[in-house]
């Protein structure tokens, strides 16, 4: 069992390394150019935010419509802190500040709303994201609607790649932990979970707070990478962009989120050539996917290397009847 586990982990690590090397080689030979590089970074940032949102929507079954608000907190934390301390340490501190503030606000929103059953979180988060944006517009230190420019850049594609991998590994392992299983139990059957002594509100709040924290990381990376922040970047549409990635990939499927973030990122680049038709085609693609794959590209199943690599020749001592 342990040996199989090591083999399994190693093959994942190899895959990640291969992707890394692939991107690295394309940068050396300058195949994709500056624009392609930017796309890769933005895909990674969306991916981190979407994995966080999938933790909330997919794992805890709660609908959040205000992910952009938490991204904004992370972005402005990075803008303010790393402008004041323009070093890599300043940047790291700024990410931590963003994570903390975002977590505290998520806690304050989640505690009262997640006690109730129903879609109250969706309504509350919708409001909170707007409130955050309006506070940012009206505060002196955030320079209102103009935003903040000249933020030092500490983010390149390697940083985003690394943090994306960390975010995915964290979420996948979290889902398998006792806490993660409790969150899924609450989603699947709240009454049964409660009867087993699982504090349902607590576990819904944990998922929501962690999702908000991941959003803050995504926001911070983005601010540092594009070196500016403005309230217009974090409107309701940004929440929807992240939501689309989660829904299209399959609610509850982390691999679906990863695949969709990449596919939509590339699609966005291709559609640049179509000018004003771009949004029409984008919308059409979304509609077509929803018609043919109503549960999302991957449904609730996860991409499993175990199955592809090790299941070709009979039983390997893994009981993975559950993996798709």
């Amino acid at each position, binding site marked *: 069992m342990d040996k199989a586990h090591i083999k399994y982990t190693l093959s994942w690590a190899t895959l990640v390394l291969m992707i890394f090397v692939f991107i690295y080689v394309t940068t050396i030979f300058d195949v994709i150019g500056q624009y392609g590089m930017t796309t890769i970074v933005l895909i990674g940032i969306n991916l981190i935010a979407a994995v966080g949102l999938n933790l909330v929507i997919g794992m805890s079954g709660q609908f959040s419509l205000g992910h952009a608000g938490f991204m904004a907190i992370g972005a402005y934390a990075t803008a303010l802190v790393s402008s004041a301390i323009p070093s890599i340490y300043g940047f790291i501190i700024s990410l931590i500040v963003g994570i903390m503030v975002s977590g505290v606000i998520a806690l304050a929103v989640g505690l009262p709303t997640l006690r109730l059953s129903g879609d109250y979180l969706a309504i509350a988060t919708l409001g909170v994201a707007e409130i955050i944006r309006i506070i940012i517009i009206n505060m002196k230190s955030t320079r209102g609607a103009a935003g903040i420019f000249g933020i030092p850049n500490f983010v390149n594609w390697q940083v985003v790649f690394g943090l994306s991998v960390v975010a995915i590994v964290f979420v996948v392992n979290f889902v398998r932990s006792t806490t993660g299983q*409790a969150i*899924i*139990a609450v989603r699947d059957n709240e*009454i049964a979970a409660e009867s087993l002594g699982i504090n349902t509100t607590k576990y819904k709040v944990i998922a929501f707070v962690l999702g908000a924290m991941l959003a803050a990381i995504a926001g911070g990376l983005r601010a540092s990478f594009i070196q500016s922040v403005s309230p217009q970047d974090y409107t309701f549409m940004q929440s929807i962009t992240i939501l689309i990635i989660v829904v299209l990939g399959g609610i509850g499927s982390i691999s679906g989120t990863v695949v969709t973030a990449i596919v939509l990122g590339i699609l966005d680049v291709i559609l640049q050539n179509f000018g004003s038709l771009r949004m029409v085609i984008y919308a059409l693609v979304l509609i077509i996917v929803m018609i043919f794959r109503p549960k999302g590209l991957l449904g609730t199943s996860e991409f499993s290397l175990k199955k592809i690599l090790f299941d070709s020749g009979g039983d390997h001592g893994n009981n993975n009847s559950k993996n798709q």
Partner: protein
Amino acid sequence: MVEAVLRVENLSVNYGAIKAVQNVSFSVNPGEIVTLIGANGAGKSTILRTISGLEKPVTGNMSFEKQSINHMSSEKRVSSGIVHVPEGRRVFPGMTVQENLQLGAFTVANKNQHKVAYNNVYEQFPILKTRRHQDAATLSGGEQQMLAIGRALMANPKIILLDEPSMGLAPLYIKKIFAIIQQIRDTGVTVLVIEQNANQALKIADRGYVIESGQIIATGTGAELLSSDEVRASYLGG
């Protein structure tokens, strides 16, 4: 005189303006099987849900092992030994049998105890061991009910509250479930069970309470209630 393990005194529970349970008092002694019988909507489920902390009483007192549990959270009640198997099975469908059982031991911090609990449950329900890597959704109704009961046993209960365990099961499984309830009691766990299948429930019960419109209208040993004309006429089909 034995000291009751669970004592409910003058319990009343309302759902809004509806008085679901009115002034109900009863007790359960250690090692007993006690059953609450009564028609649909008599308030039986509400009583169980209130004991396990899923509903709040308007008035009344509940004590477990001589300690008041009125203001105890439902998690605390589970870890102190009151475990509820809610109506309608309610397994986690996308999880395997083993993962379901694992969650049953959620309040048990000691990992060594988990192993002992697994062994006990698998010994009592060999079918669950066979199916331990299968998704719970693929189990039959009877197997799901066994899983729900097994999952509750994982929490190491002192008293188990069973809400309509035989509901919707095939006759063969109904027999099995009642045999299991007796088995559970024989391992030292006290059982409080509510049933519409009053005949079967009273046969295995040490004592029973008959509930009508949220009030207790009769009480006695299982045998006494079985032979009572009034109970026979109302709940046992003449």
